[in-house]
């Protein structure tokens, strides 16, 4: 099988969800249908191989959440290469701690705007399935969802409380950068924001774990599948059209 799509899953000291993400791409149906191969990328590498199509920042406790969750990871050597990758319009996905890294690095919300993921309103670590609305199905990551589809994904975080200034919040809503929204108040996030993308729509960050909702057996939800398939089918059709 010729590999047509390469996915890079970045590992930081303290990452603990990278294996789950890598495993997604070992699904026999997907690797068959999309000719996809996933690799680990070590955070210290200042260079991202140009053959990497899609970069994923997984969940965990990078740097033990020292300073602020994702703050030190956002300064790792590989992040500069990821900024370049994003600038070229290539997909970047940040899950949970990965979302925190994208926010700390400024890749999200993007456009010189800043945000933060604060401790949950309850002051507690939340580990549960939550209900989300897919607000924007025009992105690379959400094409295979139905507009306003209500899905279930698991969350597992203590710092997922999304905050930004009012101007930024207005921009996010107006520009349709809010991609996933909790259907109720889960952790105190402004406007119940669960996941956002950058203005160009190629960088997505979300607190819930789509890689833990691929089959109904583990978390009683397979709603994470459509996210991965949206990206894979989009990348596959690009590659195929070039051949």
């Amino acid at each position, binding site marked *: 099988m010729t590999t047509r799509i390469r996915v890079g899953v970045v590992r930081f000291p303290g990452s603990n969800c990278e294996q789950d993400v890598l495993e997604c791409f070992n699904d026999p149906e997907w690797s068959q249908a999309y000719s996809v191969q996933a690799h680990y990328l070590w955070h210290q590498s200042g260079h991202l191989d140009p053959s990497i199509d899609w970069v994923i920042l997984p969940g965990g406790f990078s740097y033990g959440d020292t300073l602020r969750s994702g*703050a030190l990871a956002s300064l790792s050597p590989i992040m500069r290469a990821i900024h370049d990758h994003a600038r070229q319009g290539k997909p970047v996905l940040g899950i949970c701690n990965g979302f925190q890294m994208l926010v700390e690095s400024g890749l999200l919300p993007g456009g010189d705007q*800043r945000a*933060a993921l*604060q401790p949950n309103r309850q*002051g507690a670590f939340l580990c549960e399935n939550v209900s989300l609305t897919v607000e924007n199905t025009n992105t690379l990551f959400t094409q295979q969802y139905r507009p306003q589809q209500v899905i279930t994904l698991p969350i597992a975080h203590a710092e997922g409380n999304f905050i*930004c*200034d009012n101007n930024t919040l207005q921009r996010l809503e107006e520009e349709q950068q809010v991609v996933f929204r909790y259907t109720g108040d889960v952790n105190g996030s402004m406007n119940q924001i669960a996941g956002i993308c950058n203005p160009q729509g190629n960088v997505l960050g979300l607190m819930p774990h789509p890689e833990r909702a691929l089959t109904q057996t583990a978390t009683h939800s397979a709603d994470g599948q459509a996210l991965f398939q949206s990206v894979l089918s989009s990348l596959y059709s690009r590659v195929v059209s070039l051949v």
Partner: protein
Amino acid sequence: MPTSTLEKTFSGKSKQLSPAEKAHTLHVTFKNDATAFNGEKHAVFEGKGALNRRFTQQWFGLLEEAGIPTCWASEGDRPETAIYHALRMIPIEVVVRNVAQGSLCKRLGLTPNTVLSQPMVEYFLKDDALGDPAIPPSAIQALNLLPASVTLQQLEWMALSVNRILQARLAAARITLVDFKLEMGLDYQGAVRLGDELSPDGCRLQCAQTGASLDKDVFRKGTGHLIETYQALANRLDQTPWSLSQLAPTAYEGVVVVQSRANILNPQSRTLTQTLQQTIALTGSDQTPIRRVDAQKRFAVTVQAQHHWQAYQWLQQLAQEPLSNPVIEDAAVSSITQLYSEGTPS
């Protein structure tokens, strides 16, 4: 926005100022007049203005190179003129002393020429009628003499930085920097800069070997000729070139304090406040005197820097990125301390 309100020529004791062509600049003429004892003693010396312009140009130039902002913009058309950035002056003289001389000895009963264990910084209110009296920091705060954007700490760090640089430069010419006076002000963008001038008029300089005065004291005490003294000083400095690279960095510990912005709901602080209010009995009654507990972060950052002001710039940068996330936190540099005392700088 602080700007100079100078509309026409202002003539002080040592300099004449008038608005220059470019916005926010002043045309400065260094006068040949020398005064002492609040104007009681007065003489005119041909060439004094040009000499002091030259000293100011060289020393402000050195400080600018070291990253300390000054009012110096450029030379003027004549040897005694210059163009300055217009400043709204802070009415305080900042004096740094390395060796006890003059009024300090009388005030505190010290033997003249006692070397201080570390530089001391003193403040004097600029007021001719009152004779520029000493003013303590708490009075400066209580009388709101500083613009809101400036702290006395910043003025102190700036003054100690000037001291370290000037002391090293003069030591290369075997000259002791006994003490000196600085004035500061805000430019039109609100940034603090050194103002006035830097010349032997406002410093006490002593030959390290003979103890001879190389400053305006020769005029004040009538012990020498001002122009000869100033010219000899200039020659001596020209013969002993010195560059900033010769100033060895030393260790400074800066402290950055990061706290939640006032209007941000901080679940940790809220939890901490409520728990302490409800569970810790400080008084005999049920009423808790605790209003708020805010968990803050304190980072002690040690840097190798050439002077306080350089350490301060770096710490400010770190405070903004990455030590705080400005969306939810405020960060400030709360102190900068030189860690190792030193003798004469090399």
